């Protein structure tokens, strides 16, 4: 339970655009309002729906001044996505705060940019185990899978609300009443079940990590072996059609002044062979030699 203090209670709700952060905050804000509290709920939209991070501050109490939660003073951090939970983790009060996060990962295109051999996705590497070991109270829930099992992915947020309900002082019936008012009529049953599942999960004890919520897949060790890539262009065969220049995923080829393809910076070539396959005149040849063999 969140300890009673003088100031307002602070719940920071975070996630990725399109996940329903605002919806979750509205449910909580409505619940607080029904209980006669002053509530301020603050969010910044703008770029949100195009896949950027979204956050919403909910503060309630007898009087609330700032619409935003001061850093380090969130009583609960509720995250709909794992990397977003980590982004905001220092907003949580380290001595009294509770951490609740869905362990699902939404990997942005930006994280899949590395082109070297054996490169990992640039997603937050911290695992639920590591974080659970460091927070005062924490729930790393695979809410998305739980919702999927119940038959509706979208109910993941309600699973998290069920977990949140164990940390705030409102009676369960009041939560359910507000949620009923927010979800489409045909999905009320699933959402009720999702709430119960989340609540039960949290009541079973904190700091557990489900098998399904562990690490990202790692590169096969063998694949990480380095190769030396060589791109050779037979200049006499190149007729300057530009196909390789346009199609190279690394955009590392160009036509020189004689309209012959060239590779100005060989370090940018990943040896993917696209140009070799597409060149209508077989003017390009790629070789990828493992470093060990090359040394021999």
């Amino acid at each position: 339970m969140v300890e009673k203090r003088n100031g307002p209670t602070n719940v920071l709700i975070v996630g990725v655009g399109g996940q329903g952060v605002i919806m979750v905050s509205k449910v909580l804000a409505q619940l607080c309002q029904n209980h006669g509290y002053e509530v301020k709920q603050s969010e910044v939209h703008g770029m949100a729906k195009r896949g950027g991070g979204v956050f919403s501050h909910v503060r309630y109490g007898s009087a609330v001044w700032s619409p935003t939660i001061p850093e380090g003073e969130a009583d609960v951090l509720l995250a709909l996505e794992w990397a977003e939970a980590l982004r905001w983790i220092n907003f949580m009060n380290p001595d009294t705060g509770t951490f609740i996060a869905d362990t699902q990962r939404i990997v942005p295109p930006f994280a899949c940019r590395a082109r070297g051999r054996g490169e990992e996705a640039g997603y937050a590497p911290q695992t639920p185990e590591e974080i659970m070991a460091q927070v005062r109270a924490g729930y790393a829930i695979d809410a998305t899978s739980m919702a999927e099992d119940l038959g509706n992915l979208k109910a993941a947020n309600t699973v998290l609300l069920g977990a949140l309900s164990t940390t705030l002082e409102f009676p369960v019936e009041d939560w359910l009443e507000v949620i009923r008012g927010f979800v489409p009529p045909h999905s009320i049953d699933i959402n009720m079940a999702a709430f119960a599942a989340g609540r039960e999960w949290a009541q079973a004890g904190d700091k557990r990590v489900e098998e399904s919520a562990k690490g990202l897949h790692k590169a096969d060790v063998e694949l990480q072996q380095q190769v030396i890539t060589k791109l050779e262009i037979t200049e006499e065969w190149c007729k300057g059609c530009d196909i390789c220049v346009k199609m190279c995923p690394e955009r590392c080829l160009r036509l020189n002044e004689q309209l012959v393809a060239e590779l100005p910076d060989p370090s940018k070539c990943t040896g993917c062979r696209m140009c070799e396959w597409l060149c209508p005149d077989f003017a390009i040849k790629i070789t990828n030699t493992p470093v060990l063999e090359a040394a021999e």
Partner: protein
Amino acid sequence: MNEAVKVASQDAALKPVAGPFTGNEAIARGVWEAGVKVAAAYPGTPSTEIMESVSKYPAADLHAQWSTNEKTALDVAIGASFAGVRAFAAMKHVGLNVAADALMSFSYIGVNAGLVIVVCDDPGIHSSQNEQDTRIFASFAQVPVIEPSDGQEALDFTKYAFELSEKFDTPVIVRATTRLSHTRSEVKVGARQDIQPRAFNENPSKNVMIPSNARNQHPKVLEREALVAEELASSPLNKVEINDTSVGVITMGLSYVYVKEVYPEASVLKLASSYPLSERLVRDFCDQVDRVIVVEELEPVVENALKVMGIRVEGKSLFPRVGEFSPEVVRDGFVNAGLLPEKIRKGNFDFAPMVRPPVLCSGCPHTSCFMALRALDGRVAGDIGCYTLSVVEPLKSMDTCVSMGSSIANAVGMAKAGTQTKPIIATIGDSTFLHSGIPPLIDAVYNQANITVFLLDNHITAMTGGQDHPGTGKTLRGEETARVDFVKLIKALGVEWCETVDSYDMASMYQSLREAVEFKGVSVVISDRPCVLDPQKIKGDPFKVDQNKCVACQSCMNLGCPALTWSSGWHEGRHKVEINPESCMGCSICAQICPTDSIAL
């Protein structure tokens, strides 16, 4: 008690609270309660939802419209004020730059029926191209600016602004900020005032700004400034809270709530308005305290005014002049002043957060356009809209972006400079083109510039959340209306080469752009497909990647489509790709790009 507050509290008995309302919804409610008859706006974050909320009130009560740009919106409101009804315009801070020409002269003219402009500033640049402070604009135009600090004030102050406008014959600006606009709280609401229309004021010496009339009006504007300052000085909208008299804080708007949050012991003068400022009001307060500190977001408007009055103040020496305020920032300011102890930040996690920039949606019709532009390797003068997101990797194909409508004329300038060897292309969205792209296109034709204009027609104003515009054939209230025919319009301006391509046809896109840049003179390519989010969400069958055929070349990953991600498979040390069926909307662009035909339905 002033009129606005009285009305609100009388009706409080009827319906005490409503909401939670966002600040924008509260402003809209204030507009409706004030008996406004005509309201116009051009969308722009964080102001957009004001006019969307206004349009939820009955059409019988008021006319609400999207205008083609902010100047047009203000001019529509001005026309309504001339014609004797209360009028309203809303815009974001940079929108006021566009509307400035009308505002500067209308300030001399003054109102017939009340006219209020809500301008939303964006401290911290959450979704804008700068963080200019509208209070400076207000003092420049000699128009009073009123600054609410929460949802209730957003409603009450908006109503009050109309009274002030009529009493002193002046347009009034209500300044909101992103944080106020997008915070929800409970709000006490009232009934709509029944305001009788005024007769048209047939007085050309006031209403027609020829030099002789303007010369007569200017001194009146200065008199008005003094009178409004005096009125505001005795307004109950200001708050004086005398606590510890060793420190007096002068603040306004959102800064006030941060001061109350972090330093409740201080004595506070909360100003309802930064301009015009009454010397009497501030002196009365300053005389009661030993040390005066001004806490204001962005520019030192009040601080400088106090300094001119010869009052000793501190302000920007303690608090930043850039960025958004927060409890932390305001607290740090008081720490700098030696008034609060340093707070030990306790967060014990020190990893860097993952980068998650906003991206074009999966299936966004802009994606193929910028994929083709990148391949073309041109010099691209960009503009403002969702498509500005193509400035970062992997699409990374925009060289410049200044302000709305800049792209085409920027391209003309680049062409006329004669220094660029690459083909010069201006990219502009449909809403932006109608906002301020037509005069520069005429300029390009008139001056025979050798440029290509790429009109990205996604049939909506997407960036701001999907608003209609004259090219959509729908009004703000969703009624059918005339629709701009872009091809006819562009040809009528004298453009000889104009072609429309399907945004989901990669090959035609490449080809069309290539031909367009070959053309000597102004050529226009129109890419044509609706935004997949607005006005309705489009979701087709998802494509799949055949893991046996994918050679991990990453060609498709160059689209930056958020539905494409790495799978657990590898090929020659690189990740194979898979498609998230939930988020793929089936545009087929990745399938068209894939060199090994691994992607199919």
